């Protein structure tokens, strides 16, 4: 029996988009699930503090960006490394009609938790079938 159920995924650099600022950006791993009321998103952004996350929704594009605190690594010389450090960036196109004013976000232990409530039009509705 092994206690190792988890494998580490190598961080994927962001492709096809170039930032004016130097340095690599990585894609955060995400979970996205949908309930009747809302769309929920969780994104792993280790090393990012609450105040360094930016979430925007513009023209149906949801953008999440996290800036990593590099001060943590100041004055340290590496001996062995398995991961690289970088900012996080990812975008999603949303098809759902969402209530933008009700979007809530919080950061907990390096995980961004987003809740995007659906607008009235996108909620499932039961249509009554009349018997004639």
């Amino acid at each position, binding site marked *: 029996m092994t206690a190792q159920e988890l494998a580490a995924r190598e961080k994927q650099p962001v492709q096809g988009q170039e930032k004016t600022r130097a340095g690599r950006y990585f894609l955060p791993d995400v979970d996205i699930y949908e309930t009747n009321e809302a769309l929920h998103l969780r994104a792993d952004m280790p090393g990012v503090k609450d105040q360094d996350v930016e979430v925007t929704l513009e023209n149906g594009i949801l953008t999440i960006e996290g800036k990593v605190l590099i001060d943590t690594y100041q004055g340290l010389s590496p001996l062995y490394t398995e991961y690289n450090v970088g900012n996080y960036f990812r975008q999603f196109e949303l098809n759902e009609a969402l209530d933008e004013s009700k979007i809530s976000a919080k950061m*907990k232990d390096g995980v961004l938790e987003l809740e995007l409530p659906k607008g009235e039009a996108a909620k499932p509705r039961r249509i009554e079938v009349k018997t004639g």
Partner: protein
Amino acid sequence: MALLRFRSDMGPTSGLLSLQEELERFLRNPNFSLGLSAYGEFPPINVFADSEGVLVIAESPGLDPKSLNLSVQGRSLTISGERKSDEPKDNAGYHRRERAVGRFSRSIQLPEDLDLSKAQAKYEAGLLTVRVPKAEESKPRQISIQAGR
């Protein structure tokens, strides 16, 4: 010939670029042995040195600090725990599921000149940081010179 050449290490974010290059150079450094653990296991680990000792940083977002276990034996440091999924309520459908969950355990071998009994750990912003100070006897010492008569 370029008329203007910008130094790449200018400005506040350049710190990030030089850090990334430095980390890249040490990626899976064969001169440093982790012992039993291998690359690819969760959580990914970086090991650094500074004047005080060694710093082990593990990228492990979304853990309950109470479920994290740290232990030392001889020269090895073991990090174990469990990453739980926050199961959504009923009738939720997943669009994407990239964040792995489950139990993990890693043991790494640390250099000899450290005092593992004085190791300290903190968990912040999804980073587990373990600081292990140098052993007293391996710290630099001044040797006084006696003048001959």
